[in-house]
């Protein structure tokens, strides 16, 4: 349904930080899922910087980073940029969910 133009923010600007948009869920586009090997990860954060959809949540001292699978499209850039090979891409059909 077309949104009335008065209800659209001026020039389409969006207040930030706004990380999630229920109208634009893209996780179901994914054919390969990123899986982290926490043992190998050095927390260099290159994947976090490179993710075009801001779908990587940084971990802290006690937990490792996680992927926001609601929006991750499975583009594989994180896998490409990881200098230690800690992120692998596994076909979605290998998972139950």
């Amino acid at each position, binding site marked *: *349904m*077309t*949104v*009335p*133009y008065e*209800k*659209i923010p*001026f*020039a*389409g*600007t*969006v*207040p*930030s*930080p*706004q990380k999630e*948009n229920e*109208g*634009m869920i893209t996780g179901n586009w994914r054919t390969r899922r990123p899986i982290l090997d926490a043992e190998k990860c050095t927390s260099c954060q290159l994947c976090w910087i490179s993710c075009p959809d801001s779908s990587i949540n940084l971990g802290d001292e006690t937990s490792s980073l996680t992927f926001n699978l609601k929006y991750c499209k499975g583009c594989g850039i994180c896998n490409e940029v990881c200098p230690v090979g800690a992120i692998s891409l596994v076909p979605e059909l290998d998972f139950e969910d």
Partner: protein
Amino acid sequence: MGVKKRMSGCVATANAIRLADVDVICSYPIRPYTGIMSELARMVADGELDAEFILGEGEHGQLSVVYGAAAAGARAFTGSSGVGVMYAMELYSPISGERLPLQMCIADRTLDPPGDFGSEQTDAMCCRDQGWIQGWASTPQEALDISLMYYRIGEDPRVLLPQYACQDGYFVSHILGEVDVPTQAEVNAFLPPYKNHHVLDVKNPMIIGAQIEPQMGPGLQYQRYLAVEGSRKVIEEVHAEFADIFGRKYDPWIEEYMTDGAETVIFIQGGHAETGKTVVNRLRNLGEKVGLIRLRTVRPFPTKQVREALSKFKAVGVIDNSVSFGIACSAGILLTEVRAAIYDMGDKVKTVGFVAGLGGEMITHDEFYKVFKKLKEVVKTGRVEKESYWLPFEL
């Protein structure tokens, strides 16, 4: 009162940009517009202008730099010519859609067929539908004046749109004319500092140009449509205020030259109009009822004003200095727009299209005479036998 100097259109534009006290300039060389950037680079180096002068890696990069600069709240300037204008095509729609009122000067140049560098309005006319304010200067003085006026129009909170300040390559950009360079105090009184209501700010983060859902698309386009249509009123206000402060009065839409009692007129845009005026003078001296109309602002197109002005004449010759291969009526963009504007007058005003001055060639006196001769023939016979002519081959 400022100082009168002789200068080219490029130097006149550079002076306007200096007086507008821009914050960010992004350049990439291509003739003929590059004369503006060499003058601005000198001004920055000599301390006459305090601005960031950034070298783009190409025109796409140039427009990307000023896009970001304008989003960060800077008054930004860039420019290009010919194929350079086309290389940046991707950026024009987002810049106007995100309502960032930066300015781009286009000193027009033919697109490669291949490797011609002459003046032709095709490059800038290809960008006319991107939601930018656009018009042509016909003298160096006007080039300076429209740059100042366009910043003021574009930055008006009721408009917030980018602007193409165009001038004919070489014919305006590189030929000296007398230019009254205003004082900084006059310009400060006319052009307040740039303030946009959405500015990138680390303390108050926002996303400009976010991915949106398709159902928001129509509304966003409609917002931009309203901005372009709403700019008509602001364009008129700003021209009136400019005349008050600087003493130079321009009709915002069309300049009428010797049209009193005229039966046939030429409708044209840009510096070639100055050649056309000398032909009008000559023919008037010979007793011919001729005149000339110069379009000053092409976007938004002054439908109402063109209709009113043209209703007085019997035949109008529309000269296009750009190509649009395969267009309706087989001439150019201005002919189709003029015909659309006067549609409801039926057959009362006859229009004929002429494509002339392509590739950097002059539109010669001889060609203007031929156009008027053809229009006289149309008035005499009451019929338009052929709706378009490519000069010099078909007339």
